[in-house]
């Protein structure tokens, strides 16, 4: 019942936020009104983020990413030769509030551009407002399928892939293996969670279509703590390939339970847990060969990523994480369209040109080259990382790999 705790936290946060917003009479940036008049005025970008409430942690990560991007752009000559200015307001993780925030940013503050908020629940209402006003809407976090099923034609998700496509590089790699090395059977276990399942089932379904047999398919509720029963079934199936869709503790407990029962797959693809910094500490020296998809890693060698990591680390002292990276990516995507089209103003003509340009072009970003389908789904896949010599390294795709993929996996 972690929900209980979250509720408590949310209640306290909400109370605090209410008190705060009552004290701060006027929202940030109200004096900005008017929008873009001349070529020397800054380009004003409006954002509403969950800085308090349920999504406060990732919301602040996105804020750091946006601010770092704006600072970087301004140091390097700005956008179209104009400085960039952010107006960031707090939507308190509230879906009603986020819509009115964007209404106000567009109507009252007269922003030139908008960036998306964090998370599906807030992205959908915000995107609706942007759509109504004909604004381009690039968003850093809203990967759930429903985001792309609302009929938006102005929306673009600034990350490599939606959940179902996270494993695409690994699926391609497996299917390219010689017949005798390719896994013939697979065991799947996933938390009952749309994101974990989306990732795991993307790989499962691709391989099942190619003839790999599913010998075990388990779904467990998020509060599961004892994984020995699931491990017993997977061990009994003796599948060649193990696919796990996890968050964190479930992935760790399942791996330990499998080790206890002596299950040794040729390949173990586990989303969620392994990319967590605590994972090797929890599993010990038995991580070798575990594969995991990741949306972002500071070590990726895409050209702009090196600049990003350097600029971000110089300012914050620590390398960026995924939320910061997706925010930065959002900035890059919008900037690419603005530079190409040559306009940045709230007029429907300019916004439509930006939207059209993104539908037709690719953008180089810190998470690789991005392009989108008509509904705004990114068309790439996540990087695949593997524990090699005790460290998690990129092994797929080939052009950015840090180490060779180990197959079959060493015993754990």
């Amino acid at each position, binding site marked *: *019942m*972690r929900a*209980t*705790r979250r509720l408590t936290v949310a209640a306290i946060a909400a109370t605090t936020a209410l008190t705060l917003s009552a004290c701060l009479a006027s929202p940030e940036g109200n004096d900005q009104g008017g929008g873009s008049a001349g070529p020397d005025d800054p380009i004003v970008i409006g954002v509403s983020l969950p800085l308090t409430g349920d999504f406060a942690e990732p919301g602040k990560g996105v804020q750091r990413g946006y601010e770092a991007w704006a600072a970087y752009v301004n140091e390097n000559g700005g956008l179209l030769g104009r400085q960039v200015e952010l107006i960031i307001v707090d939507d308190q993780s509230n879906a009603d509030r986020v819509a009115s925030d964007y209404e106000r940013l567009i109507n009252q503050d007269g922003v030139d551009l908008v960036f998306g908020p964090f998370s599906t629940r807030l992205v959908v209402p915000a995107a609706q407002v942007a759509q109504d006003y004909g604004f381009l809407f690039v968003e850093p976090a809203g990967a759930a399928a429903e985001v792309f099923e609302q009929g938006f034609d102005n929306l673009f998700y600034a990350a490599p892939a939606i959940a179902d496509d996270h494993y695409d590089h690994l699926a391609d790699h497996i299917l390219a293996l010689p017949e005798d090395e390719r896994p013939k059977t697979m065991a799947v276990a996933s938390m*009952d969670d749309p994101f974990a399942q989306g990732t795991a089932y993307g790989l499962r379904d691709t391989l099942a279509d190619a003839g790999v047999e599913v010998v075990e398919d*388990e*779904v*467990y*509720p998020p*509060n*599961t*703590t*004892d994984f*020995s*029963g*699931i491990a*017993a*079934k997977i*061990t*009994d199936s003796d599948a060649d390939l193990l696919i796990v869709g996890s968050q*964190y*503790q479930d992935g*760790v*407990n399942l791996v*330990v*339970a499998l*080790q*206890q*029962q*002596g299950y040794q797959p040729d390949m173990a693809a586990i989303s969620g847990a392994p990319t967590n910094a*605590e994972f090797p*500490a*929890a*599993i*010990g020296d*038995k991580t070798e060969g575990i594969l995991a998809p990741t949306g972002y890693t500071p070590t990726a060698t895409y050209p702009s990523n090196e600049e990003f990591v350097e600029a971000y680390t110089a300012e914050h002292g620590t390398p960026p994480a995924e939320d910061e990276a997706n925010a930065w990516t959002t900035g890059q995507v919008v900037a690419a369209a603005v530079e190409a089209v040559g306009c940045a103003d709230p007029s429907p003509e300019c916004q439509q040109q930006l939207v059209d340009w993104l539908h037709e072009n690719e953008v180089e970003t810190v998470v690789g080259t991005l392009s989108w389908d008509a509904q705004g789904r990114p068309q790439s896949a996540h990087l695949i990382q593997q524990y090699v010599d005790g460290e998690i390294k990129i092994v797929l795709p080939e052009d950015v790999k840090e180490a060779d993929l180990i197959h079959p996996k060493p015993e*754990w």
Partner: protein
Amino acid sequence: MTGALFAQSLVLGILLGGLYALLAAGLTLYFGVMRVVMIAHSAFLILAAYLAWFFHERSGLDPLLSLVITVPLFFVVGYGMQRFLVSRLRPISLTTMSVLLTFAVALTIEGLLGFVWTGTQRRVQLEYSGTSIEVFGVSIAVVKLIAFALAAVSLGALYVILRKTSFGRALRATTQHPEAARLVGIDTDRVAGLGFGLGLATAAIGGTALSLDYTIYPSLHWHWIGPLMAIIVVGGLGSIPGAAIAAMLLGVAASLLQVPLGTTWAQTVFYLALFVTLMIRPQGFFGGRLAQRF
């Protein structure tokens, strides 16, 4: 279901049942001795697991050694909790009010754990975490075996204390008839405090056993209290052997049912057993009347 999978699941069920038995024994003891519903039992369990983890982190020694500290500590805390908190409740509404009181204690412990060690999930990483012994094709994880042995020894010790010592006799007398116990000269307040301490000491042992094999986080105790409550009702409130038998049966049932039903439905076995018990034998299956317990 293959034979190997059946055997493996059976063994896992017995190992899990052993741990449940120890944890349920403490819970049923509180109720037997003073009609207290101790919601915070599993919160103390997680607290003990955290202390074991912290001890291991700081000293590098085996977390089992933390028992030397936590068992006496929990005994004293339990005694104090009974004397200074639980005994202040009005006898007439003791059982219902104790739910509220111990619920508050559980929330306080959870909050403090989160405050001190954050919500990050912790795990004790040991040399033997992933190792197992193979017996007739069944893998028995060393950590689970240790937990089971701890549970068995503690349950045995608890039984001996209650049956063979004069304190045990006083405790049982207090359970059966407090007024009569006072008439023959038993200081029932003190006995109740010691009984509470004894119950909490079992939480220290159970928590340490738990820390060997589980990832722990502050709110984990909510996952344990439900099945444990169901177990003590099925076993007969206040009956330690009843709790142990019910724990073992339900642990094995959950483990075996997982194979055909999957994890989600296997968890419901505890609650189904609870409903069935309340419908056809509300006093519990193994306890008989409260006065004849132990």
